[in-house]
C-alpha cells in the first residue's frame, strides 16, 4: 500500500491572504534595510498592507495578514522568538484589537488616517509597556516617551495618508462599471 498523501487545498482566500502577507513581508524586509538613527523607531510600512486589507477584506483577513507577516518577517530577519519578536507580536496584537474596535466607528467620520494613528499609538504604547514591565524593569523610559510618541504620530499620519491615497485610486472594477 502506498502511504496516503495528505492534500492541503488552498482556497482562493488562503491564496489572497498569503499574497497580501507576502507584500507585508516585503515591506518589513525593505524597511529593515533602511538605516535609522534611533533604535526602536521605524516607519512600519507593513501596516499599510494591514489597513488596506482591513478595509477591503475585513478584520479577520487583516489579522491573518498581520500575524503571518510578523512571524514570517521575524524568521527572515532572524529575530524569531527574540525580544524583538515579542515586541513586534505584542504591538501587532494590540493594534489589531484597537483596529477591530475602530473599524466600527462611523466610516464617514473616521477614515484610514485616524485608524492608522490609533494603531500606531497603541502599538508603541504596548511595546513600551512590555519593555518597561518585562525587558528593562529598572530603567525609566519616561525621557524617551515623548520621542517615541512623536515618531508614532508621524509614521501613523504618513501611513494613514498613504492608505487613503491608495483607497482613492480608481479600482479596475469601478472603471469597468463606468465604461459599461
Amino acid at each position, binding site marked *: 500500500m502506498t502511504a496516503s498523501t495528505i492534500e492541503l487545498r488552498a482556497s482562493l482566500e488562503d491564496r489572497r491572504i498569503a499574497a497580501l502577507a507576502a507584500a507585508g513581508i516585503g515591506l518589513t524586509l525593505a524597511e529593515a534595510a533602511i538605516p535609522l538613527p534611533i533604535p526602536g523607531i521605524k516607519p512600519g510600512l507593513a501596516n499599510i498592507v494591514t489597513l488596506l486589507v482591513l478595509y477591503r477584506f475585513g478584520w479577520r483577513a487583516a489579522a491573518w495578514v498581520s500575524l503571518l507577516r510578523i512571524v514570517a518577517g521575524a524568521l527572515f530577519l532572524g529575530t524569531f522568538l527574540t525580544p524583538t519578536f515579542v515586541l513586534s507580536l505584542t504591538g501587532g496584537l494590540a493594534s489589531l484589537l484597537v483596529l477591530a474596535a475602530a473599524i466600527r*466607528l462611523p466610516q*464617514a467620520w473616521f477614515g484610514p*488616517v485616524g485608524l492608522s494613528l490609533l494603531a500606531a499609538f497603541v502599538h508603541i504604547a504596548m511595546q513600551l509597556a512590555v519593555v518597561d514591565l518585562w525587558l528593562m524593569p529598572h530603567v525609566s523610559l519616561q525621557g524617551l516617551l515623548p520621542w517615541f510618541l512623536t515618531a508614532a504620530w508621524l509614521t501613523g499620519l504618513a501611513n494613514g495618508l498613504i492608505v487613503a*491615497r*491608495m483607497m482613492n485610486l480608481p479600482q*479596475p472594477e469601478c472603471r469597468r462599471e463606468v465604461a459599461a
Partner: protein
Amino acid sequence: MKTHFGQSPKCVSAEANAGAAGVKRSGRSQAVQWIYPGDWLIVLAGLALVAGLFLRAPAVADRVTIRQSGQPFLEAGLRIDRLIAVPGPLGTTQVEIHGGRVRIKADPSPRQLCVKQGWLQAGEAAVCLPNRVSVELGRAAYDSLNY
C-alpha cells in the same frame, strides 16, 4: 492586470463614502480631503499628547548618586523603593528612595540640614557635611549595562 484590491465587491472611495454621509469635501487639496473630520480629532489629540509630554518631560532625573567622603558609595535608580544605610564618622545616614523620589530620612548630624531639605528635586543635592554623606539626584549617563 488584476490586482488583489480590485476584488472587492464594493468599491466605495473615501470621497463617495463621505459624500453619502453629507460631508462636504471639495475645493481643498487632496491630502486634506483624505483626513476625515473625526481623524482630525485623533490627529490633534495625538499632537496635544506629544506636546504635553514634551512640556512635562524636563524632570528627567532617574539616578541617585550617594557619596561617602567624596567617594562614590552607591549609584541607584529610583524604581525600587528602599532604605539605604550609609556609614559615616558620626554614625549612619539613612537615605530613602520611595515612589520615584529620594530624601535623607535620618542623619546623626546636629543641625539636621540635609534631613530638613526633604525630597530632592531633579538636579538637587543634599549634603550632610558632618557625616560626610552627599546624595545627588541627576540624570544617568549611558552605560553598557543599561544601554
